[in-house]
């Protein structure tokens, strides 16, 4: 008898927690912490995108738009209007949810390439607005974002903090915060998947007809998951802005949308831990390839191509399959 989904779920979360909290033992310089923090935040946004793409089988080639909207909403509210970070982040998420719902209702009636084109356009429109509204967004030059604050307590990469009696640097503090955010994002996503709502979402992917004949309002669930994944992107965008201290419209760019989708596909659609691995690989690979200078993008593309050709299901599902096969083989050999 196979193990139940909930067991996998707990294992995945525990594994992830160990990795997140063990990492600081192996790295120490601010650059590495910065990279890890950024990766954790982007990975959390990818976990949200995976709900839409991997589980509900819909696509969004404009998700960076929602990431950018969340980032700019928080940046504008905190920097221009002196709001505190949490209310700015929450209101930004509500704002993005409304936008995603209004946009999602009509475009999610489309399928396949047509939906790709429509979401692509949504992303472009948001990027264009952020570029052109100089008065509010600072245009292509970008705008500064204040530190993240909670009830007067400020989280800054330049700060010094103490945690359980230990002195920790601002870089490490930000990393730990981002790590916890990622764990919460994963926990919420996994709860969603293993529920009546989650089954309805997955059935939209598996068979829309089957879903509808047992009473699933497929249009409603498509909109719902689109909104949820947009809120994930918005919240992570807001935190990303606070962490970087400065944002430009590139956070909402087409390139970033494609990067997010690539992380989902590379890591393994429909595998929450898999897409995090996808995010880690794609965030780190350019750093590792930096030594090759002008060959960097060529190698990057080559690695992506080879991975997709030989592991079309993504890194983690392919690895899991191999392991299962090997196990079955050795079990067969014993008998």
């Amino acid at each position, binding site marked *: 008898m196979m193990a139940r989904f909930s067991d996998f779920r707990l294992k995945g979360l525990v594994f992830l927690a160990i990795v997140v909290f063990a990492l600081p033992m192996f790295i120490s310089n601010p650059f590495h912490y910065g990279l890890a923090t950024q990766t954790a935040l982007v990975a959390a946004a990818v976990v949200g995108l995976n709900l839409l793409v991997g589980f509900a089988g819909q696509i969004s080639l404009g998700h960076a738009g929602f990431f950018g909207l969340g980032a700019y909403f928080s940046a504008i509210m905190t920097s221009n209007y002196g709001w505190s970070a949490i209310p700015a982040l929450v209101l930004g998420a509500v704002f993005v949810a409304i936008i995603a719902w209004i946009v999602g209702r009509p475009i999610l009636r489309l399928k396949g390439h047509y939906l790709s084109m429509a979401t692509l356009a949504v992303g472009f429109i948001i990027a264009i607005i952020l570029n052109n509204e100089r008065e509010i967004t600072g245009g292509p030059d970008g705008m500064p974002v204040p530190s993240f604050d909670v009830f007067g307590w400020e989280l800054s990469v330049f700060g010094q903090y103490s945690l359980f009696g230990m002195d920790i640097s601002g870089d490490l503090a930000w990393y730990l915060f981002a790590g916890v955010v990622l764990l919460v994002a994963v926990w919420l996503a996994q709860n969603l998947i293993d529920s*009546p*709502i989650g*089954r309805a979402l997955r059935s939209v992917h*598996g*068979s829309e007809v*089957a*879903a*509808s004949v*047992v009473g699933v309002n497929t249009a409603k669930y498509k909109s719902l998951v689109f909104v949820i994944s947009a809120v994930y992107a918005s919240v992570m965008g807001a935190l990303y802005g606070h962490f970087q201290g400065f944002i430009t419209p590139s956070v909402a760019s087409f390139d970033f949308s494609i990067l997010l989708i690539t992380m989902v596909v590379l890591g393994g659609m429909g595998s929450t831990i898999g897409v995090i691995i996808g995010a880690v690989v794609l965030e780190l690979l350019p750093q590792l390839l930096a030594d090759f200078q002008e060959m960097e993008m060529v190698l990057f593309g080559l690695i992506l191509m080879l991975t997709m050709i030989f592991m079309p299901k993504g890194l983690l599902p392919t690895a899991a399959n191999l392991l299962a096969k090997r196990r079955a083989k050795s079990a067969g050999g014993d008998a």
Partner: protein
Amino acid sequence: MTALVEVRNLSKAFGGVHAVEDVSFSVDAGQVYSVIGPNGAGKTTLFNLITGLYTPTSGEVKLNGESIAKLQPNQLAERGMCRTFQQMQICMNMTAIENVMLGRHLTLKSNLLTTLFRLPALTRGEKAAREKAAELMEFVGCGEYLDTEASAMSYGALKRLEIARALAAEPKVVLLDEPAAGLNAVETAALEELIRKIAGQGITVMLVEHDMKLVMGISDRLLVLNYGRVLAEGTPEQIRTNPDVIAAYLGG
């Protein structure tokens, strides 16, 4: 006894092709009602019209006296109508029991808050849904597959799984589109037994089927379609001796 499903002058044209033309019949609650006919007679089109996948060109379908011809499949499920498909519609991205639990969708009241934080109200509902689904899988005869991925199951088992999912929605009437297609003699006999058990629970069963032996054995009434029109309607005995039916089937 009042009719549970009532079809009046139903027609569907695809361009110039009249797939279903002026079909009328009614199904009483508790009956096993079969639709038969040669290939291309419009049987599946008729099912698609009744279950809201197609919108009729003209005519009316009533469920419990309410007109349902313009409703979506999910709205019909809310009113107690569920079906299976000739081309099986199984969610291959889920396990067997999750497919059946999907059938419980309408009976599981959940909101985003209890879901995201996995509050006790949700886990209670899930536990009950899982028990019910396991029971149904046992009932249809695929109880050994509970947590198997649907993609790893055999064709015959998936056919039964699809019926379990339809039953999980607690329908008043369930429409089975060629449930015996692709099954061997032993599996067909088991299916006949299963359909009797379903009818025995007071669920009305509508059937599209090619297997004459199966259909004649379990149906209370039959509808024979030919080129989209009603050729005959009646009890198995009446159909068996109807000269028009014999002519259509034997080409005489």
